[in-house]
């Protein structure tokens, strides 16, 4: 049954990696593009470029990436077998 535990660890690691990707994206666009004189700002959809990329696009990017990662790497686990009265011994094997 250690196989499931390995899978859970893998999913936790993927979650952390996604979190780090969002952090790097958020930080680099905000401070990479935003830390200049505001009179030089370019605008996208009416919003300053740094804000559009960091917050709006960052949000859409991470949601999509998350969706794909879950499709690819996350596995269905049957939770019922762990329940009190339902084949309790199964997970012990």
């Amino acid at each position, binding site marked *: 049954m250690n196989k499931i535990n390995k899978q859970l660890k893998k999913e936790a690691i*993927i979650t*952390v990696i996604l979190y780090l990707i969002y952090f790097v994206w958020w930080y680099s666009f905000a401070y990479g593009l935003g830390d200049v004189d505001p009179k030089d700002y370019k605008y996208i959809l009416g919003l300053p470029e740094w804000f559009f990329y960091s917050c709006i696009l960052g*949000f859409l990017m*991470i*949601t999509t990436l998350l969706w794909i990662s879950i499709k690819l790497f996350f*596995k*269905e686990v049957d*939770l019922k077998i762990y329940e009190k009265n339902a084949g309790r011994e199964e*997970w012990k094997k």
Partner: protein
Amino acid sequence: MEKIKLILPLLVYLGITLYIAYYNSPRRKKSKDFTNEYFIGNRSMGGFVLAMTVIATYTGASSFLGGPGVAYKLGLGWVLLASIQIPTAFLTLGILGKKLAIISRKIDGITINDFLRARYQNKWVVIMSSTAILLFFMAYMVVQVIGGARLFEVLTGLDYTIGLVIFGFSIIFYTVFGGFKTVAITDAIQGVIMLITSIILFWVLKEAGGGMRNIMKTVYEIDPNLLTPSSGGAITKPFIMSFWVLVGVGLLGLPQTTIRCMGFKDSRSLHRAMVIGTFVVGFLMIMMHLIGVMGIAIIPNEQLGDKVIPILAIRNLSPLLLGVFIGGPLAAIMSTVDSLLIQTSSTIVKDIYINYIAVEIDQKKLSRISLWTTSIMGVMVFALAYHPPEFIVWLNLFALGGLEAVFMWPILLGLYWKKANATGALLSMGISLLVYVSMTVLKIKLFGMHQIVPTIAIGGLVFVIGSCLNKPSSEEHLAIFFD
């Protein structure tokens, strides 16, 4: 007549909520295992409900009132700060979700303390965590309720007490009789209301300001710094980075989110909830805080503080729309209070009463005690909100950080580190809380960081050292958690 238009949508909405409570009442269904049904809803949440209840519980008065208020003062930099919260939902669900779902089924646990007790096998860990939940939740709820009743006063012009009574009666009623399942389902509806209302206000304001580009231009003319990530130096880097702990990593283990990892139906629900949750929270956070910034252009140069959203709504929406809108922030507050209320009750009944006072107890008596406990705690919250004692307001300042200090490491390391034991958990819980409270009271800020950062760092270190001082649990016992 105008007042009726305002209140009507609110009453319709409260009516629906009460009906759902009646429909899902565990008493009505004569359930066999009362606590399981009442406190965790028989682990039946699907993906959408799970996502919405996690978000709605977490999104309270601050996201609808306080946060946008600061954005009105500091500009886009504060929206940048708010968007730190976007990945928190999937971080929590992704790391804790499946593991807790499996373990809570194995140990037949329905509260955070059931997990802590099973993992650490130590009475003091449970007592300490119960005390933290009761104290901090109480303060948190009272302050949320005060926010809700004041908002009701500002928006409808009716008396604070009337708001408190309507509000109090409905929350207590549906939580007492409906239990966890009703809380989760109403949270989902409240989440949808929050979304709709924020879209309405955003759209109306965008039109009123003559489009986004125009609004940003006006903001630029008022003060160019309002468009920068640092708000012209007002939001320093150590400060904003601290929020990656305070409203990011630190939320791992927050009891009101963690309990939801024990209540979903199957792993597919969890996967869906991660995506839906991230999408909804991002949408809501960006929109609400951006509305605060748009307020700068639409009502310039006023000292509005956390009234900015209500005032913008009053000045720009028609009475009926305003009535629909009031539902948004009130839903945000109600969905936080109901969740904390049911969890407070489960802590008293399941973790303290059944464990240490009355071990043998029949289902009928148990259901009576649970309903009474929830009612009494609910009435207490609203009574305290009528005349809030200073102690409660003071305590609320520590609520979020305090819960993080107590719960993050014991839950995270308990799930993922075999050597974690009671010695480490107890030392870490005690010392973290002490460090956090004393640093906050003495206003000590290391390198300009929020106090939560050193607290979490010290707490983790103490946990590891403490655990190494004593033996880990037996392999046999650990099998429940790691095999």
